[in-house]
Each structure stands twice: as C-alpha cells, then as structure tokens.
C-alpha cells in the first residue's frame, strides 16, 4: 500500500518537469525571430552574433530570473500562510516588499551610486531594495519580540501591516520630492520587471535564496504540525518558537531576494500555493516543492507574455500576473465554497 505522501510524489515530479520545460522553451519565444542554429554556432564570435546575444543576454537570463523569483515567492507564500495561519497571507504581508520598494525608490530618486566593487555584483537599485527588505525584516522581528518571549503571530501581523502602510507613506513622500522622470521610473519599478540583462544580477541574491531553500526543506514537517495550532504542535514535541523564527526569517529573506531581482510582483505568492493545495492536499512536504516549481513555471510564462504581447514595448510583468491571477483566484474562491 502506498502512503499518501508517495502517491503525491508524481505531482511534484510533474511540477518540476513543467518548470524545466518552461525555462527551456521560454528563450525560444520572443518579439524578434532568431536563428537557433546561428545562436549556438560557436564559430561566430559572440560579440558579432546577434542571435546568440538575443538568446543568451536578452532571453535566457530573464527566463532564469522569472523561474527563480516565481519559485521564491510561491514558496514564501506557503510558509507565510502556514506561519500566520492565515490563507490570505502573501510574501508581502509583513512589509518585506514595501521595505524593498522604499529602498529602490530612494536609489532611483536620488540617483544613488555605489562603489564599483558592489555594483559589479549588485547595481544600486537592487542593492538598495535588498537592504530595504532586510531592514524591514529586522524591524518587524524586533517588534514581534518586544511584546513576548516567543513570536506572537498577532503582533507579527499587526507590525507587518502597520510597517507596510508606514513605508508606503514614505514612498509617497519620496516620490513627491522626486522629479518627474524619476517618479515615472520608480512607478514602473513597482510594476515588476525581469529584464535583468546579466546573469550577475541573479548571482548576488542566490545565497539568500539557497539558504532559505535549505530552511524550507527542514520546515516542511514543522509547518504540518504548526497547522494544527501552536499548543498541539508543542504537545507533539516541536520547538515552536524555533520553528516560527526559522520560518519567519527564511521566508522573509527569500522574499527580499526575489523582490530585489524583479520588483514587487504580485499574486504569485498567493494563487500558486492555493492552486497546489487544491490539487495536492495540505501536506507541506508536497505543497512546498510543488508550489516552488509551479510558481517558477507560472512566472516564466507570464514574462513571455509581458515581453511579446505589446512588442517592442514591454508590458510590466506585475500587470500580467495580476490580470491572470486576480480573476483566477476569485474563480477558485467561488468554486471552493
């Protein structure tokens, strides 16, 4: 007899296959037609091979960025929903993305430049976004700890929601004092953009994402226990405080890394986990990896739409995810009830 877990494994494998197929197929699609044979022809020097450059500079890094960001946001969504025991939680509920956005707004508006040692790996805007995200994580954690020894999810939620509004107000203020062109670009950053143009920009956030992925692997079982409530989890021998702390930090850090790459792209972190749970049940050992894979594949597809629909003009990918994700989520909601 197969265990429930084993019977769900093909679903995870299928999700993983979907992600791989999406990343492999996406670079073949674009606003211009390229000659694949020429793109992979090593005898043509790279700096003269337009087809190779469109494939390797314009498309492949975008597909990888979309996969990485989509997977991170979907997995972070799963963890936040479990940690806060709230199905409406998103990776952005606790203020990480608004902190990142504030950092990015400041960098764009004031034209910050950084020492070239840092900008080689991380240009000013992503660097400021990452710093803003990490700053807001620490503030929320400090607030949640101030009231009680453990992590109070209620305080966590309140602090996060308040910080979100506070940072939003600061963003408006920064935009108010900024000049017109910068405000326009800042607004555009908020709509999401995965046109990273180099692989370097994916490398710097990678350690954060890898670290969080390791934590997520450990978290799957504790999150299953936490779903039944903290006292029940404690009764079954879980160090609840430690699990909550790890869940909070890993999910926040991976969200910050994802936002620094692509901006605050919405809906991935909420519709993908719900869709996966609908199909595969609530076991986090299945939901976490499957959501990561589906989330990555979903965002890769959305980005293909974003860069081809209105070509040569770019459509912000955040608008694509919202237009697809919003109605889909509502349909899900009606169908379930």
């Amino acid at each position, binding site marked *: 007899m197969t265990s429930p877990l084993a019977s769900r494994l093909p679903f995870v494998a299928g999700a993983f296959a979907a992600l791989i197929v999406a990343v492999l197929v996406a670079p073949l699609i674009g606003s*211009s037609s390229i000659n694949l044979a020429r793109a992979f022809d090593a005898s043509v020097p790279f700096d*003269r*091979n337009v087809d190779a450059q469109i494939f390797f*500079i314009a498309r492949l890094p975008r597909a990888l960025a979309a996969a990485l960001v989509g997977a991170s946001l979907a997995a972070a969504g799963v963890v936040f929903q479990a940690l806060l025991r709230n199905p409406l939680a998103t990776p952005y509920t606790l203020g990480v993305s608004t902190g990142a956005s504030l950092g990015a707004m400041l960098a764009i508006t004031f034209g*910050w430049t950084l020492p070239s040692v840092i900008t080689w790996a991380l240009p000013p805007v992503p660097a400021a976004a990452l710093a803003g995200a990490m700053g807001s994580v620490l503030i929320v954690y400090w607030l949640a700890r101030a009231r009680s020894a453990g992590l109070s999810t209620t305080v966590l939620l309140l602090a996060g929601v308040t910080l979100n509004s506070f940072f939003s107000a600061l963003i408006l203020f920064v935009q108010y004092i900024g000049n017109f062109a910068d405000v326009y670009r800042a607004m555009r950053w908020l709509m999401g953009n995965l*046109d990273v143009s180099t692989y370097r920009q994916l490398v710097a956030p990678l350690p954060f994402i890898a670290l969080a992925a390791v934590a997520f692997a450990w978290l799957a079982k504790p999150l299953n226990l936490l779903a039944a409530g903290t006292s029940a989890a404690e009764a079954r021998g879980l160090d609840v405080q430690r699990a909550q702390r790890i869940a909070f930090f890993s999910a926040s850090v991976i969200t910050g890394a994802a936002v620094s790459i692509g901006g605050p792209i919405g809906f991935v972190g909420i519709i993908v986990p719900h869709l996966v749970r609908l199909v595969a049940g609530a076991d986090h050992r299945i939901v976490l990896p499957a959501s990561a894979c589906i989330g990555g594949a979903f965002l890769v597809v959305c980005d293909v739409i974003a*860069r081809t629909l209105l070509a040569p003009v770019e459509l912000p990918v955040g608008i694509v995810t919202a237009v697809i994700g919003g109605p889909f989520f509502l349909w899900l909601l009606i169908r379930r009830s």
Partner: protein
Amino acid sequence: MGSARTALGSRLSTSRDAVVRRDSTAPCPPRTAHRTARLLALALVALAASCGGQAPAVSTSSDAAPARIVSLIPAVTETIYAVGAGDAVIGVGTFDTYPPEVASVARVGGLLDPDTERILALRPDLVFLYGSQTDLVAQLERAGIPYQTYRHGGIAGIVETTRSIGRRVGHAERGDALADAIERDLAAIRARVTGRARPRTLIVFGREEGQLRGIYASGGTGFIHDMVDAAGGENIFADVVQEAVQASLESILARAPEVILEFRAPGATRTETWAAQQMDIWRGAPSLPAVRNGRVHVLLDQRLVVPGPRVAGAVDLIARTLHP
C-alpha cells in the same frame, strides 16, 4: 536647400496634431458665463475635441502687454526671455534654470505642486501653465487672472509656441523673428545632413543606474524624436507612435542601432566622469553596432531636454554627434 525647406514644411503639417494652439484668436467657443468656469475645467477634453483636437485656449485676453508674468514651464520661460519680455517675469517654476536671470525670480512650484497661494499673491496679469493643471486653471478662472495653457509638442510646436508667446507678451515681431531664426537654423542643419547616410539611432532618456535595464527610449513622436530626425538620424523606434517606449534589451538587440544617444540633463551626479562610465555599461550588449564601433554618446545638455527656443542649438549638437 529647397528640398530641405519642403521637408520641414511637410513636418510642420504632419505633426500639427501634436501642437497645442495657445492663440487667443483660436476658433474655440468663447467663454461667456463665469458660472461655467468650473464646468469648463471638467469639460477640457470635450472642449479640446471641439477645437479640432487642440487643447483649451485662453481664458481672457487684454490688449495691453502683460507686465507681471508667471511661467511654470521652463521652455516657455526661456521663450519669454528670448523675445525680450524677461523684465516682466515675476515668478517661475521649480525646474527653471535658464536663462541665468531666473535664479533671482520667485519660485511658484511645478507641474504637480504649483503653489497657488504664491501665484495669486504675486498678482500676475498672465500665467503660463500646463494644460493638465486643471485645478490651477479653475482657480485662476475664479480669480479672474488671464492664463495660457501649454502642452509639449514636436519641433513644429516649438516654432508655433514661440510666435504665439511673442504675440501674447506684446513682442510679436521679436517672437516672429526668433521663430524664423529657429526655422532658418533648422533648415540649414537639415541641408547640411541631407544626402548623408542616416545612422539607425537609439535615443535613450532614462535607464536604471548602472544597468541595461528599464531603458526608456524615444518613440516616433514628440520633440526628442523630431530633433534626431532633423539632425539626420533614423530613430530605431520610429514605428512606435509614443513619446516614451519602455524597450526590452531584446528589441534593442534585434533593431541593432548604429548609434546610441543618451540625452540627460546635467546634474550633481551627472558629470563627464559619469557619462564616461555609461559607455562601459553598454558593453553588456556587445553585438550592437553602436557598441562595437564606439558610437555610444552620452550628451549632458539642458537644451536636449527643454523643448524651447534653443532647440536649433540642440539639433546642431546632435547633428555634429551623428555626422562628425
């Protein structure tokens, strides 16, 4: 020379729809009742449509030349000074930097944050403002202060604006002379570049710092496109009928520009050193002919971003960059 004239003439007529008529004699229904003033602000779009696609014209006109002028628009401010009415300017916008005399003039806010109280306190007898500042228009109406609205258009718009501002501030002859001079200078530049190969040009006016990302390029309409066109360049995004195009790296690689022009206003961080660093960033797309041939030019010049009377100088700068 004759063919250049014709080319300019046809451009004048083709881009007419982008031009805003500010002339008080424009064939718009005259405003009669004060009560309609508030409705007028709401009905701007409809009114513009009734004027054949042109923006709302003037509230009141008086025969005497204005003696207390407020201008919220850098390009208009430059024109007022250029036609010799600078002495009458008593208030300018936040972003006005030219001519140097404006440094000592009162500041009254900008496009999004006009300081209405300040403007009223200055007791102007003519206010130049953006057509989109409908709240301010309504307030000026209520206060009975004459105003003229303005919207950025192409080069033809600049020439026409110069004439109408000259008339409006009582220096019609100098306005016409200035407009003629702009047209003459532009025609001379067009004649100079006629017959030369027109390099396929990417015109960038915004980009994320230190990256080939979030690139804003000029589409095929508006004053920046017109300037490069006049200077003998072929805009690679000419087919996109928008002023600003958010261009993906893919579309830029596919369109393979022979020259890349980045237009930026000089500023505290925008120095020649900064400009030199931007060339390095473009090496991230090495197949671009412009990058291979070292034809990425970062131009730091206020004239490139203000659609005002110095436009011919800006076009000359571009022409010399495109056709060295």
